[in-house]
Structure formats: structure tokens, C-alpha cells
């Protein structure tokens, strides 16, 4: 019953309250967007590799290994020998082993030397295998398979010709322009670093570096493409190995064996464990973001407090009338708390709609510019406690003006004449 009165009262001041609703809506939209992007970044990292039980590389940081082998961030500290790959591949518990050779690029996209097994064994997201949008895996020595982003951004199709650059910068000085490749297949978009990679065979990596020494061409040594094809192109080194185990139980056993391998300093990491390390690192930045968006919400609530306290001056008479009719102090406080709850609830609702709209608009930009895949722009249930918290804090904000209003009526009594 009192709520109708409170509602009518708020409605009569809707022009002032609208702006505070807007402030809260914007702050809530920011809060949700930050939460959304935070979880999506996490998801997109988690999505990048699945179905791989172990990643093997040169001994170094576990995080570093997964960063360069899967996410193509940074460089390998060292290569590992092909003998080690064969030894591990022949282990009776290993179901499959895929070599990864990095170090070259094409117009800013990383080149991954691997085997055709990569396309059958590598999985992303919830055990989703790689699928070809067009074409097929490489067959010829100078065939390449490109990710969806590479195809889209460079306008490549099956049959397009490309030359690789030595090193990973987009402005590399040494070009492998004497050994052109042709696109054999284009992969479907996965929302992972795979989309931004050019895949060639491990043998092709050897072929393009034939006649090279220490990162540059040996002068005067010109070997034609035909001559290269005739050579035995046995790789001597590789960057990392992706392993699938026959039984998950043997994973730890093999990991220990690899880590204790005497002939070469190797390490094997579980992708999940390495990702956990990544989260610990990222958590600081995440928390900073959350604190900032939390502060924006706080600023919105303080703004509301200021508006409510200011409105009390104009509402003195209203309160005096209520008291004269017999309103108890808690009625007066309820009136103010109702208003702050209403304003923050509408603000929160509007903020949710705003964030959904903004994320929908930003989705294509985030995907192309930052490779961030937002799977659903809708609200997840995880946001519910956060939003309830905002509304609750908003409700609590009304307590102070409510108490002030009561104090005012107590001081004014029935004597106020305005």
C-alpha cells in the first residue's frame, strides 16, 4: 500500500532519478562487460588445447612451453632433437605424437611445421577436432594448410601461392622466396591460435632451410626446388611435441620419464597444469579490472546517495505530512529505501541490457582485432550474485537518507511552513 505512494513519489521526480538510473546502468554495464571479457579470455585460453595429454619441449618454464607451442607467444628457449621425438613416439603408452617446429612466419602469421597427424589429433574446445572449410591436409612437400583468419585477412583460397619469411617478425629481411608454397586446405574457424597459423610439413621446414646456416642463406649455394625434392629431408630438430596417451593413467609415468631423461634436457607438461600457472599470473590483472569496475559501481551508488540526500530538502513537506497522518519512522525510512532499491534495480536491469547490446556490437571487433571469441553475449547465471549485490548495495544506500529524513521530521514536527 505504502509502495504505491512511494512509486508515485518517485515517478513525480523521474527526471532527476533518470540520470542516476543512467549512471548506475552504465556502471553495471561496465561491470558485466569486464566480467564477460574476463571469463571469455579464460574460456578462449582453455579452449585452445584439448585432447592433448602432454606437451614436450626443451627444459625451461612450464608456462613458457605452453605459451610458445600452443599460443605462439614468445620463443622457444631451445630445440629438441628428432631422436627424442622418435624415442617418445615409440613408447608403448603413446597413442600419437605430433611434432611442432616453429621459427618462420608469413606476413605476421606463425608458420607451424608439423605432421598431417596434427589435423586428426589436435582438438580445441570440448574435444572438437579440426575441420577443413575447403581443401585437405598437405600432400605435397610444398603444400600449406592455413587457418581461417589467415585465409580471411589475406584473401587466400585453395591454390593461392605464398612464400615464407625466416623469423617471426612481419618485416623479416630474410625471405624463403625461392621455395614458394601453395595452399592445399583452409581450416574452419576455431576461435583459437590455430586460426592464425600456416601449417606446413616438418620436411618442408627442412627443405626451405636447406642451404641455410645460422639464419641466413649460404652465399653462392643455390639449390633448385627439384634438387631439394630429391634429397632425404629428415628433420634433425623440432620445437615441441604434442602427445596423446593410450591410457590417461600412464600420463604421469611418461611425464616423469621424460623429465628425468638423461640424454637431453626435456620437460613434459600437462596443459591444464600449465594453464593454471597462467591464471595465477593473469589473476592480478583480472583483479585490477574488477576493482576498477567495482569502483565505478561505487561511484554510481555515491551519486545516488547525493541525489537522495539533496532531494530530502524538497521533500521536507512530504515527510511532515506523512508524519502528521501517523507515519512511523520506519515508514519514512522505507520510503527512501524503496526509492534507492527501485532506482538501483532499474539501473541494473538497464545496465544488463546495455552490456548485452554493447557486447553484440563489440563482438566482431574483439574477434578480428584481439582474436577474442565471445561465445554468447547473454547473461550467465554466474553474474546473478554480482547483480543482486549491486541492487542490495543500492537498497542499503537508501538507509542513510532514510535516517536523515526521519531526523528531519523529528526536528520539524508540525511546525514546518513552506
Amino acid at each position, binding site marked *: *500500500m*505504502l509502495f*504505491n*505512494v512511494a512509486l*508515485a*513519489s518517485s*515517478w*513525480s521526480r523521474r527526471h532527476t532519478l533518470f540520470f542516476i538510473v543512467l549512471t548506475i546502468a552504465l556502471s553495471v554495464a561496465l561491470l558485466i562487460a569486464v566480467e564477460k571479457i574476463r571469463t571469455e579470455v579464460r574460456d578462449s585460453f582453455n579452449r585452445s588445447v584439448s585432447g592433448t595429454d602432454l606437451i614436450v619441449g626443451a627444459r625451461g618454464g612450464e608456462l613458457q612451453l605452453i605459451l610458445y607451442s600452443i599460443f605462439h607467444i614468445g620463443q622457444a628457449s631451445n630445440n629438441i632433437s628428432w631422436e627424442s621425438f622418435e624415442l617418445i613416439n615409440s613408447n608403448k603408452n603413446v597413442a600419437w605424437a605430433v611434432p611442432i617446429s616453429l621459427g618462420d612466419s608469413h606476413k605476421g602469421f606463425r608458420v607451424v611445421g608439423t605432421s598431417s597427424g596434427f589435423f586428426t589429433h589436435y582438438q580445441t574446445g570440448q574435444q572438437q577436432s579440426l575441420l577443413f572449410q575447403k581443401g585437405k591436409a598437405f600432400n605435397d612437400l610444398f603444400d600449406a594448410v592455413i587457418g581461417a583468419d589467415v585465409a580471411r585477412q589475406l584473401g587466400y583460397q585453395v591454390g593461392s601461392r605464398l612464400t615464407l619469411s625466416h623469423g617471426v617478425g612481419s618485416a623479416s629481411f630474410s625471405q624463403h622466396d625461392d621455395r614458394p608454397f601453395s595452399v592445399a586446405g583452409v581450416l574452419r574457424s576455431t576461435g583459437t591460435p590455430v586460426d592464425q597459423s600456416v601449417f606446413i610439413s616438418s620436411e618442408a621446414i627442412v627443405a626451405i632451410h636447406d642451404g641455410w646456416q645460422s639464419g641466413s642463406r649460404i652465399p653462392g649455394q643455390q639449390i633448385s626446388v627439384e634438387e631439394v625434392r630429391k634429397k632425404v629431408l629428415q628433420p634433425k630438430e623440432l620445437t615441441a611435441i604434442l602427445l596423446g596417451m593410450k591410457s590417461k593413467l600412464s600420463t604421469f609415468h611418461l611425464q616423469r620419464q621424460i623429465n628425468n631423461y638423461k640424454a637431453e634436457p626435456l620437460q613434459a607438461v600437462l596443459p591444464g597444469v600449465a594453464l593454471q600457472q597462467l591464471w595465477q599470473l593473469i589473476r592480478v590483472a583480472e583483479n585490477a579490472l574488477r576493482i576498477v569496475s567495482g569502483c565505478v559501481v561505487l561511484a554510481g551508488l555515491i551519486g545516488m546517495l547525493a541525489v537522495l540526500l539533496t532531494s530530502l530538502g524538497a521533500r521536507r*513537506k*512530504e515527510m*511532515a*505530512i506523512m*508524519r*502528521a*497522518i*501517523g*507515519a*512511523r*519512522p520506519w*515508514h519514512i525510512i522505507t520510503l527512501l529505501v524503496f526509492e534507492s532499491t527501485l532506482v538501483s534495480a532499474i539501473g541494473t536491469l538497464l545496465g544488463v541490457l546495455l552490456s548485452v547490446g554493447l557486447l553484440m556490437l563489440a563482438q566482431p571487433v574483439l574477434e578480428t582485432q584481439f582474436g577474442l571469441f565471445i561465445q554468447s553475449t547473454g547473461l550467465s547465471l554466474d553474474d546473478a550474485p554480482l547483480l543482486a549485490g549491486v541492487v542490495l548495495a543500492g537498497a542499503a544506500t537508501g538507509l542513510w537518507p532514510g535516517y536523515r529524513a526521519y531526523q528531519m521530521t*523529528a526536528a520539524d*514536527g*508540525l*511546525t514546518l*511552513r*513552506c
Partner: protein
Amino acid sequence: MAAVTLEQVTFSWKSGTPIIDIAKCEIKSGEHIFIQGPSGSGKSTLLNLLTGLLLPDSGEIRIAGCCISSLSSSERDCFRADHIGFIFQMFNLLPYLSLRDNVMLACRFSNVRKQRAIAQAGSVSQAADQLLLELGLGKQLHQRLTVAELSVGQQQRVAVARALIGSPDVLIADEPTSALDRTTRDTFIQLLLKEVSQRNSTLLLVSHDDTLSPFFDRTLSLQQINCAGVTDAI
């Protein structure tokens, strides 16, 4: 039976100078009393004491047989809602509510008055409409005018309707005619007295304007009954 009794009531603010010091004052049930006093004679303080918003330093205030000066703060609020109808000098109404809702508001805080209104007219809204009709506001009610569209005199009549709904024992009016011209004032007072008589309510009207006193059963001069006799300006 006495509707309002004050006995040895004193009140002073923190400064210590007494503002109210009334030895004895009794108002019979159904009486229409005019309390006359110039500004500064303690009128406002007396009204706050009578409505239970202030507590006397000493003495007893009894309204409708209940000693309100011994009630707790929230009990006094309830008592005020149930037994007292109050009319301000002006701006009595909440501008964002309709005329009917303004009148019905008095029943929102008092179950007693709500039940009484229902018993008298069938429902609270019918009771409100009936009062507004009796007070000559039928047209305004029908046209759904807002508070802002009413004249001051009409607003005061809506305030009377609100003070009367559910027939409270005592009606207290604080300078209700000060914003009205002479003709409107006389019509207003006559209408007020008629409605109060119909309901056998007790009326206490406080004003500095002694030309009102012929309308009433009895006139009390606040300066005479209040021994504090201060000339402060609250």
C-alpha cells in the same frame, strides 16, 4: 467526557526557557474550540505536544481518555494515526497523488480509521469520494484534477476530507485559513464545522486571527492559559 485534557504540562527546549506551562485545560468531547494566540505564544509547540510529536517535560496530556505523554514514540505515532486528524496551514497534499488517494492516505497508516471508513461507506475509496462530494469537490474529483490544478481553498477542503476520513476523535487545524480570503475563509470554516458536527468530532483550531472566534463554542487565549508567556519566535 473530556476529549483533551492538559494537566500541569510544561515544556522547554534545551536552552531552558519554558515555552509551555499550562496548569489545567480541558476540552469536552464534541466541543469546537478556537485557540487564539499571536505568533510566538507557543502555538506550534502546543500542537506538537498535542499530536505526540513532542513529549512534555512534566505533566499529563490525555486525548480521548488515553494519556499520550506516557506512550512510547511509536505508540504515539499509532495513536496519532488512529485518533487525530491534522490540517496544516497550507500545502497539505502530496502533489503526486490524486485527490482521492490523498484523502485515502490517512487510512493507510490507521487500521482503526480504515475499518471505520469501510463501515460508514462500504469502502475506503467510497468514503473518500463521499467526503469530497460533501466538501463541494465533486466536480474536481470527477474531472480527475491534480492537486496543482486546485485553488488553495479547494486544497484546504481536500485536507479537511483527509482529516475527517474514518472519523478520528480529535481534529486539529493549524491556521487553516491563513492563506484564504475572507469569503472563502468563512465558507471554509462553516463547512468544516458542519462536517465536524456531523461526526461528533472534537475540533481544535489554532489561529492568530481572532475574527474567527464567533464561529466557535469557546475561545481559549493561549496567552492566558500558558503561564510561560514567552514571546519567542519559533
